[in-house]
């Protein structure tokens, strides 16, 4: 997917008036990360420069009175377009709260939940939508590769940062690079974000030695991949649950390397989360990579080994700037 087509792609899923605004904005900007639609609230987009309100013609504004206010009809129309007019085919997606679009963009949506026996049966009256633009930034992980791969093996690696700092983008590129280096990678892509799979076909490049299991809960997926695809590496996004840890242990016992991401601002925060702390304590991870935005999104702020020793400290360099 090139940067030139993602604009048309994304815009075609938006309600008429929103299309005008976002379309106008995209004519002048390339750094869109998220589109936020909230009922009766101003239209908001997030870029690498921060978030901003938009007018109907797509101009950035700080003046609330000039901003375009998103209506119920805008949200309804967007949901219709996002679902290709087939809400009936997306009952599962409504249950889990997001849809992956062709091109790998992810649409999160929340509204009123309908429960059945205490479980989410479906969601109605979607009033909040978040469209995250999937971006493939080739080479973003080149800097990281020497820390992860040596001539013999792949280090078990945990990439962490607060949300929206480019973890997924970094992991995706790392997977691609490792596959290029001859490693067989099994990707467990529970939320379709790594591969952007649309009907089972990855829309984003994960390399030629990569197998993707999408939509599967991570723990089950890791075990399944271990059994079936004979990988050198298992890669997955956003770990943190207890059964994730058990599955990761299983993979390591089988001699397979694990590369994963987690939400956390700092090492201290990881240590406060029981499951992650436990993995750390047992020295399962040999590389801990902290991402930040000190010099642009996706800056590799620090790489430490499993004992907390900094292999390379400080700000390495801006690696995650979005190509223009």
């Amino acid at each position, binding site marked *: 997917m090139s940067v030139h087509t993602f604009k048309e792609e994304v815009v*075609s899923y*938006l*309600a*008429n008036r929103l*299309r005008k605004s976002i379309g106008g904005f995209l004519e002048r900007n390339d750094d869109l990360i998220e589109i936020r639609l909230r009922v009766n609230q101003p239209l908001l987009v997030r870029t690498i420069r921060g978030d901003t309100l938009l007018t109907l013609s797509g101009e950035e504004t700080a003046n609330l009175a000039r901003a375009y206010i998103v209506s119920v009809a805008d949200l309804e*129309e967007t949901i*219709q*377009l996002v*679902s*290709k*007019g*087939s*809400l*009936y*085919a997306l*009952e599962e997606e409504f249950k889990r709260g997001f849809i992956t679009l062709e091109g790998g963009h992810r649409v999160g949506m929340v509204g009123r939940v309908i429960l059945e026996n205490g479980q989410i049966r*479906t969601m109605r009256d979607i009033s909040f939508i978040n469209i995250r633009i999937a971006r493939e930034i080739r080479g973003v992980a080149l800097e990281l590769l020497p820390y992860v791969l040596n001539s013999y093996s792949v280090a078990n690696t945990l990439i962490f940062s607060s949300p929206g700092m480019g973890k997924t983008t970094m992991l995706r590129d790392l997977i691609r690079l490792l596959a290029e280096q001859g490693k067989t990678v099994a990707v467990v892509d529970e939320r379709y974000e790594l591969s952007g799979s649309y009907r089972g076909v990855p829309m984003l490049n994960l390399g030629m030695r990569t197998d993707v299991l999408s939509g599967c809960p991570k723990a089950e997926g890791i075990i399944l991949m271990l059994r079936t695809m004979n990988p050198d590496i298992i890669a997955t996004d956003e770990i943190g649950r207890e059964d994730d840890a058990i599955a990761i242990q299983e993979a390591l016992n089988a001699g397979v390397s694990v590369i994963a991401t987690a939400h956390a601002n700092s090492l201290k925060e990881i240590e406060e989360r029981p499951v992650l702390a436990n993995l750390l304590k047992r020295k399962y991870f040999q590389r801990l990579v902290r991402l930040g935005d000190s010099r642009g999104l996706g800056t590799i702020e620090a790489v430490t080994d499993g004992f907390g020793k900094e292999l390379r400290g400080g700000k390495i360099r801006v690696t995650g700037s979005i190509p223009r």
Partner: protein
Amino acid sequence: MLQGLFLGSLLVIGSASVLGWQLGDRYRKRRQQLEDIRLALQVLITEIEYGQVPLPEALQQAAKVRPGIGSKVLFKTADILLEKTGQTPRDAWKEALNQEATNTVLHTEDIDILLGLSVSLGASNTKDQLRYFKLTIQRLERMIEEASMAEASGVRLFRYLGVLGGILLVLLSI
């Protein structure tokens, strides 16, 4: 002279009969077209219910079953949706119907029933889709019944009227 008159009269009676025939045929056509659309909708809801196929594909699949007006409307709707110009199924269905309806003998009330489906097309879960489609199909069936009854009397009436009108014209002109 007499021969010419005879031939002329035959021509007048013949043309009037054809006209009557054609007018009568509109009754048959309306029933056929309604049945066509009913079949298309039945196949479409099956695709939606069991196949859980996205709407554009479901429309195309259902449209392939039998050529006719139903097929044309479904294909047209799918085309509009696949153009990705941001048309919702509601707009696409309305536009397709309005375009295709001009080539039919359907009555306004028939079209209204079909336009009624636009509000819900694709815009709800399977259970609700099923309900809306059933309702539309039921209403179409009432129209088909009405059209069949009109056909039974109307076709014959217009055929007679055509022939008799032709004869009357000849008699009047002598």
